[in-house]
């Protein structure tokens, strides 16, 4: 099932059986190993509370803001161990995490949001050209660049959050449920742009989603995480065909009502 023939050198990111604890007692992640190939797009799927966001926070270092800690295992970016590096330095290395809930700087304009995220060392001219690039990717933002970001629509805010992250010049972009609460056509638009940047710039992407249908359309591989453990890892094609995935995440289960599925999901946890 797991097809992990990828050489470690080809991975921009690798997690080796990491455990994450909150408040020194609550074990939220129990031995997760995943890899993102250089220039690849990988999805991390799972239901509520599975540990998807926690995994991303472990990678970006934002766990520290929530009194969480990687208590075992190691995380490598570009082959280097990053466990002891501050979140700020991880961004400088090229890891950027678009956190859950499209948290734009509400009282700043979109333009200022992009300014705020530009690295301190970036020249004025480079900032201007980078902002132009963002407005080219996300033309909707260009139209609203001087209005207050708190008043943008949900889709526009998500685009702004992604554009803001891209201003940090990441090599690995991690997106936490970008499709949440958005109309399908907007999800398609946003995913299309991410795919385009991946192709054009070779940006590696780790995409966390509950919306497996949309996610599996654009990634090459996917991991399924349940209760803090990876329970499945396969190519997007095989995952789409997998009956369990279809049943629980693609809404393809036939002849079963929601209650049955919930019941079934409690019995079977994909833990072989």
């Amino acid at each position, binding site marked *: 099932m797991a097809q992990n023939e990828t050489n470690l050198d080809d991975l921009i990111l690798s997690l080796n059986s990491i455990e994450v604890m909150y408040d020194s007692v609550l074990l939220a992640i129990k031995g997760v190993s995943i890899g993102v190939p250089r220039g690849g797009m990988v999805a991390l799927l799972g239901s509520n509370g599975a540990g998807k966001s926690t995994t991303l926070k472990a990678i970006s270092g934002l766990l520290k*803001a929530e009194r969480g800690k990687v208590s075992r295992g190691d995380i490598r970016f570009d082959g280097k161990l990053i466990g002891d590096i501050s979140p700020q330095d991880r961004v400088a290395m090229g890891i950027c995490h678009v956190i859950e809930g499209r948290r734009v700087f509400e009282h700043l304009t979109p333009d200022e*949001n992009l300014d705020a995220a530009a690295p301190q060392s970036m020249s004025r001219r480079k900032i201007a050209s980078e902002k132009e690039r963002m407005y080219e990717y996300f033309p909707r933002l260009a139209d609203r660049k001087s209005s207050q970001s708190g008043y943008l629509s949900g889709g526009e805010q998500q685009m702004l959050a992604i554009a803001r992250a891209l201003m940090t010049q990441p090599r690995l972009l991690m997106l936490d449920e970008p499709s949440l609460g958005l109309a399908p056509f907007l999800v398609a638009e946003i995913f299309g742009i991410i795919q385009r940047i991946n192709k054009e710039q070779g940006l590696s992407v780790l995409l966390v989603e509950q919306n497996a249908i949309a996610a599996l359309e654009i990634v090459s591989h996917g991991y399924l995480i349940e209760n803090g453990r990876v329970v499945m890892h396969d190519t997007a094609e095989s995952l789409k065909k997998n009956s369990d995935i279809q049943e629980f995440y693609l809404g393809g289960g036939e002849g079963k009502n929601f209650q049955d599925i919930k019941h079934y999901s409690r019995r079977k946890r994909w833990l072989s």
Partner: protein
Amino acid sequence: MDWIFLAELTVNGALTGLLYSLVAIGLVLIYKSSAVPNLAQGALTMLGAYVVLAFSHNLGWPLWIAIPLAVVIMFFVGIGIERVALRRLAGRPIVMILMMTMGLDIFLRGTTLAIWGGSSRSLNLGVSYDPFFVGDMLLSRIHIVGAAVAIAIFIASVLFFRTRMGIRLRAISDDYLASWSVGISVEGGVALSWGLASIVAVATGVIWGEVQGVDQSLSLLLLKGLTVAVLGGLDSILGAIVAGIILGIMESVGSFYLDAIVGGGSRDLIVAAVLILTVMIRPHGLFGRHDIERI
């Protein structure tokens, strides 16, 4: 009715109000970058005045050396406060940070009392106390100087918040987690805001030290400054200026009429009423953004 006298009350009130604005701008600088009302701004102002006094009187250096030196020292005092007292509280509930600034206020008052004692000293800035007439109005020169300083600091602050660093500070007060996620140094930004507020505290301390002498009572300026900052909207520099003028005029004109009725002491009542009514009727103040309870 003596219109000239009323005009004089109004103008002097506005000038005094601008001196309150100085305290308020210090508060806003920190609020705008970390969403914390700094309850130690009054004590910082007092400390700033004492540091100038230490150089100019204890060491006998001229003011043009003493004041810039105090500015540099206080900048690092502000940075140090963030590093020692506040950094470990990052991400904690806002009340914790608020209590820390209150502890700081008590600490600074205790320390300055132990070092310099309780007696009032004068700074001797050299601003003349000769009567100064504009038309028929009698104005105070030191208040005019102070008001000019307030306007200058106001302009500098507005410009600062448009720079790249200023934008980053505003981003931090909007959402520190999102700021971390794009590599903004939240700690560095908050430290800088404390450093800048401490510089403003030196200017405030020098002006107020000249107005009323340097002693422990300078720390009580916090109450006026906080009232002005809340009335203006805690995150608005413009609000700090406008609200300062409004409060100053209300205090000066209002107390003139009220004192005649209640027999004195109505200044503080007016300040208290403004603070309470603002919080009740318009919690985000005149120019503040609406959701001020968010951190």
